[in-house]
């Protein structure tokens, strides 16, 4: 029994293909990318060693700081929105819908699986102003709120909120199901006991439900912020970073730097900055997970 499962040759044969392709396509390029941060140039023009020049450029690059500020603002707002609205939905599933919540859960989850590009096209039509009014502007016109009709995606401020609304709309059902799974695991007698002690409504949620839900709430926040820091497809398809550079996240700024300007070294530097940010968040997961166990 033992000897057969300890067959090293068989183990290597089974794990080998995965390890090979994963190393070649994921691990080696990561190290390679780190090396690129010390060079200037691209695959066509060739590369030139420049030391830490790219990092010096990064620190004084106004566009980088603008993209970083946008990314952080977007990540914080969308993460809060996704998890808080997800939480409210999940509470509704459990306390109002009870056993009948299956269909509602399934329907609200649906946008999660749609292609981001398709959703963005849909939202660009919903918020369109020319050549025809989209859903929102038509609605405003119908209720005679003509003063509010505006080019939603043509202004940095409102475009930001359209992106936020779109991404929350897309994923709130996901977080609702995630938190719902946590809620149904709370033992019924704990809730019953708290009710007998006179806790109800908000107090029940605040003092009984939320503390018991903390671990899953926390991992939802972490998962969400890890995704939103790397936002790309939905913004590219909705605004492509515009107007100007006002809705450009780091991922898109990196993409444009590398492929529109042909600066692989600087592009890798931006990617590295993004990776470090994500890593810090991930370390936060582990430290908090350890605290949960202790």
């Amino acid at each position, binding site marked *: *029994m033992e000897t*057969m*499962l300890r*067959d090293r040759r*068989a*183990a*290597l044969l089974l*794990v080998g*293909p*995965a390890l090979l392709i*994963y190393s*070649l*396509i*994921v691990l*080696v390029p990561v190290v*390679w*990318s780190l090396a*690129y941060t010390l060079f200037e140039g691209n*695959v066509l023009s060739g590369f030139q060693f420049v030391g830490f020049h790219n990092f010096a450029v990064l620190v004084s690059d106004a566009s980088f700081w603008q993209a970083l500020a946008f990314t952080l603002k977007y990540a914080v707002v969308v993460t809060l929105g996704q998890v808080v609205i997800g939480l409210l939905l999940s509470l509704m599933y459990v306390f109002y*819908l009870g056993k009948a919540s299956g269909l*509602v*859960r*399934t*329907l*609200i*989850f*649906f*946008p*999660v*699986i*749609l*292609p*981001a*590009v*398709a959703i963005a*096209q*849909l939202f660009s*039509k919903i918020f369109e102003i020319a*050549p*025809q009014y989209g*859903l929102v502007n038509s*609605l405003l016109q119908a209720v005679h709120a003509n003063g509010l009709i505006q080019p939603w995606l043509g202004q940095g401020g409102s475009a930001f909120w359209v992106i936020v609304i779109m991404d929350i*709309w897309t994923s709130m*059902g*996901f977080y609702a199901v995630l938190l719902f*799974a946590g809620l149904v695991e709370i033992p019924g007698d704990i809730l019953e006991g708290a009710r007998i002690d006179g806790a109800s409504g908000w107090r029940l949620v605040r003092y009984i439900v939320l503390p018991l839900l903390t671990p899953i709430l926390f991992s939802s926040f972490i998962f969400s912020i890890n995704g939103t820091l*790397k936002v790309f*497809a939905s913004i*590219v398809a909705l605004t492509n970073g515009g107007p100007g550079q006002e809705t450009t996240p780091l*991922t898109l700024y*990196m*993409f444009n730097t590398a492929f529109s300007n042909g600066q*692989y070294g600087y*592009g*890798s530097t931006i*990617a*590295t900055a*993004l*990776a470090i940010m*994500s890593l810090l968040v991930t370390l936060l997961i582990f430290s908090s997970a350890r605290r949960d166990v202790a």
Partner: protein
Amino acid sequence: MSQILTGRVDETKTSVRKLESKRRDATRKMLSRIPAWVLIGLILVIVLYPMLWMLLSSFKTNTEFSVEPFWSLPSAFHWENYAVAWNSGMSTYFLNSVIVVFPSLALILVISVAASFALEVMLWRGRNAILLIFLAGIMIPLQMVLLPLFTIYFQAGLIDTRWALIITYTAFGLPLAVFLMAGFFKTVPRAVIEAAVLDGASIYQIFYRVAVPMVANGLLTIALVQFFFLWNELLFALTFISSDSNRTIPTGLLNFTGEHGSVDWGPTFAAVSITVIPTLILYLVLNQKVIKGLTSGAVKG
């Protein structure tokens, strides 16, 4: 006899009374829930109406868009919008997506199920370290590999081929697949494996005759989760593919709306609908599995 009968009538009366008060309670409960149901209805409208609007709009003519209010129903089912969308590129993109996504899925499944069997069921030094290395891949931002991969594929002559996508999708599908698969293997009872060993099966027979059939459900879950990721993938497709004839659906749709989006609303909505329909059908059939699979990836990732 009559006494017994009256007794019975009394019993019935009390139970009727109980039932009535119960019903009154239920009605009151129902009434108190009306605000909640209104709220739920509103949320469902917010979630579902945009998609319904898209579907209805895909059947409208251009004059209907400019003359009729947005909530009007299409005057007729103008299927020609779908014909226009399909013939001006969407058929190519759709086919390319199929050609890229399904081989990638097959490779991810075969490679990850073998690896996770070795990592989870077999016993050898270093297996935990290797499992951790795979897990690290879940966190790596795709931007970190984009430029070196472009260089590699450029040197290898793979830029603007579907191979570049198949290779990349397979490699990047592995971390999550290995992780989930290892979780599924954990649930296979050791006794089953031991029994197979006693029956004289070789390690490879144990793998594909005993272990794999027991995680068939897990294979379907992983295939579903990866299908949605790959079908919707934009960044790699945008980077590695440049010619229109090799585009997959996400980049193709971007291109299509770039050309038609501002003027031809009908065909644009039809193109978006074509993109959405495969995922919609899959979701209609397997929604509970999809929901479970996608959220399990999140909890563990």
